[in-house]
């Protein structure tokens, strides 16, 4: 694979003032760069200028943040968010969505193309990039659809889209139903480049399903989406990618069978990457007994505990290299209806780190370094270098208080929508400040009051 691009070479962000910061005595953890220790993190001219001996950095002209006891991580990268623009700005737009990302410690996100109309032309990409330069708090890249209008029939002008700046391609929200169209897209990838991100689902098997098919769907009388709806499509596309020696990225894995197929494909040398979403890593279909669509209705659906365990194992062994929120904002009126009628999707950008820290790290299921690594793992599959705190690199920092307890939603959301899957939960660990592309993208209000200068 070709050289990885720097974040801001490919993504767009509103340009502002470069931060000049000293995060004094921060516990710095960047597992990929092999950094784990207390340092003064000096951010200057858009870069991590220095990791200085604690208390000894030159603070002249810098804003000093007393970070003793706080953790500085490479900021996170989310390869799967829905910014809902154009067409559904009542749910989210570039400005609110990237503010939510910044609040979650992210320095980069990739926006899906299933908007209204879908992002299918070079002009669509150009308009979105313009919006990002005008109002994005963190760098954002845009995917274009694989097929025109997401109709699954004809390929988009993928070369022109790439030239216009499309980071990759996805019909996310819908699967590419036709194996023939899928094969053509993979062939064409040799010409246009760009990864193809896949929402894997066989609509014939999903039918009218609204939750995982199993004992809980049997108990509550909701139509089920079987695991094989996902896994058979993952298997199909892994085989097609192998055949064409093409690159694919499998989105939001939810079923144990799918994890096993990706694992086997990787072992066989297929260029396949995979993501899992925080809600699938924390929740199971037992939640759906509440029939609460705000928090528990999404596609793919929450599955069994054994599926959740398989996803965690996939995270551990690298079968799943990244965590992606599939941040899917919806307004209240689309969720304040019976479960079957409610829109699919939950938001997650503002809570991903805190939720996974609380639910997976604190109980000892995975360690902190793995979580940080996987929260940055979504960049490389799209040809982008992962954020790092190695001196000299572009400054992308998430400063977190791992002991802070907070209740999700009590202070509202940066997102325009409120359908967070962990709404109302009390989480431990909170992002206090985010530096993205060298600029301060977010400060928790309560925290900024306490900043020394």
């Amino acid at each position, binding site marked *: 694979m070709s050289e990885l691009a720097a974040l801001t070479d490919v993504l767009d962000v509103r340009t502002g003032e470069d931060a000049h910061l000293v995060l004094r005595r921060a516990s710095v953890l960047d597992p990929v760069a092999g950094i784990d220790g207390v340092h003064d993190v000096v951010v200057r001219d858009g870069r991590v200028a220095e990791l200085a001996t604690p208390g000894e950095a030159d603070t002249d002209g810098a804003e000093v943040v007393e970070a003793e006891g706080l953790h500085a991580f490479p900021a996170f990268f989310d390869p799967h968010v829905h910014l809902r623009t154009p067409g559904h700005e009542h749910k989210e737009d570039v400005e609110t969505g990237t503010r939510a990302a910044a609040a979650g410690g992210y320095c980069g996100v990739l926006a899906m193309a299933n908007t209204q109309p879908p992002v299918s032309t070079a002009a669509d990409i150009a308009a979105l990039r313009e919006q990002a330069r005008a109002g994005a708090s963190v760098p954002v890249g845009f995917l274009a659809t694989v097929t025109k209008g997401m109709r699954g029939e004809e390929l988009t002008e993928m070369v022109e889209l790439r030239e216009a700046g499309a980071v990759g391609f996805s019909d996310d929200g819908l699967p590419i139903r036709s194996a023939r169209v899928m094969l053509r897209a993979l062939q064409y990838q040799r010409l246009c480049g760009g990864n193809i991100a896949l929402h894997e689902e066989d609509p014939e098997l999903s039918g009218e399903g609204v939750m995982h098919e199993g004992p809980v769907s049997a*108990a509550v009388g909701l139509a089920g989406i079987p695991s094989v709806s996902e896994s058979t499509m993952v298997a199909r596309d892994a085989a097609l990618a192998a055949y064409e020696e093409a690159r694919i990225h499998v989105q939001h894995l939810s079923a144990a069978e799918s994890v096993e197929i990706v694992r086997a494909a990787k072992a066989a040398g297929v260029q396949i990457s995979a993501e899992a979403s925080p809600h699938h890593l924390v929740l199971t279909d037992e939640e759906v007994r509440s029939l609460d669509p705000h928090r528990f209705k999404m596609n793919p659906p929450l599955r069994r505990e054994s599926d959740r365990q398989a996803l965690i194992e996939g995270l551990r062994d690298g079968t799943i290299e990244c965590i992606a929120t599939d941040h899917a904002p919806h307004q209240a009126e689309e969720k304040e209806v*019976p479960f079957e009628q409610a829109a699919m999707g939950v938001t997650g950008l503002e809570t991903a780190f805190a939720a996974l820290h609380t639910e997976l790290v604190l109980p000892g299921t995975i360690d902190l370094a793995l979580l940080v690594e996987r929260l940055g793992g979504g960049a490389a599959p799209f040809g982008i270098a992962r954020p790092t705190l190695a001196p000299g690199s572009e400054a992308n920092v998430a400063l977190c208080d791992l002991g802070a307890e907070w209740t999700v939603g009590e202070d509202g959301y940066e997102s325009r929508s409120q359908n967070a899957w962990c709404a109302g939960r009390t989480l431990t660990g909170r992002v206090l400040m985010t530096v993205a592309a060298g600029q301060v993208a977010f400060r928790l209000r309560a925290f900024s009051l306490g900043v020394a200068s």
Partner: protein
Amino acid sequence: MNHLLSIEDLSREEIEAILDRAESFAEVGRRDIKKVPTLRGRTVVTLFYESSTRTSSSFELAAKRLSADLVSVKAAGSSVDKGESLKDTVATLSAYDPAAIVIRHPYAGAAQMVSRWTSAAVVNAGDGKHEHPSQALLDVYTLRRRLGSLEGTRIWIVGDVLHSRVARSNLIAFQRMGAEVTVCGPPTLIPRGIEELGCEVSHSLERLGEAEVVYALRMQQERMSESFVPSLREYAATFQIDTRRLNPRQLLMHPGPVNRGVELSGEAIDSPQSLIAEQVASGLVVRMAILYELLAGAERPDPEGAPSPGGGESSPTPIGQPA
């Protein structure tokens, strides 16, 4: 009990209390004047988003027998037709300050949502394929009258379990009352994982003789086009309950409306072991009991003229007799 949303929410004791109350209303039904003043001056709204004959008529008559004012709203011909959301419709009807809203809706969880939007007691009269608690209560009532108790009774629920809210509510209710339940039907119409609810699963009527009660479900025409069964003919040949498959000691039940000649043979329907007509009669008194328990039960202030709740000795008082 503040609402009746799901059988799942009721303990065996709560079920028994409703059935005991229904018994006392059955006695009222045998009098010349079948009306009691319990809910005089209070309003019951029925809100039906799906067609219904038995459930809507029996809830309406139940409310009238209890002297409530009744507003019945059907989705067709109401502002629901004009695109009003469920939430807005409930807000509108709540402005009349109803004591109870009885709702049937094509989607699971609708009654539960409505209960969060109104101060009225909410009765789930069927929500999607989720639950139909009043049906389960009337079925338990009917069986209890026949058998005395359901403890240890072997009940087979036969047919399209996948699409049936009655199957789900009855499975829970029968088990809660101590019965042993088997669900039976073609594999395409039995939901995956249902055995985790504690029932047995069978795909054949071979062992039907083990059952003391056979509860047949309605088989809908459209299931064929969705490939659940190849034909109604084959379904009937394999799963129809007829007088050859039924032995004379077994009781036969069905929630109605029956597809004669599909899930049940005409002979079976009209046989003396069929409780189908009795189920309909039970529907009225059980629904009176549900409204009574919700609106005049112990947790709510007694409306004037109501008999004291819970007291076994006091039966509801007909109008014209000293209270």
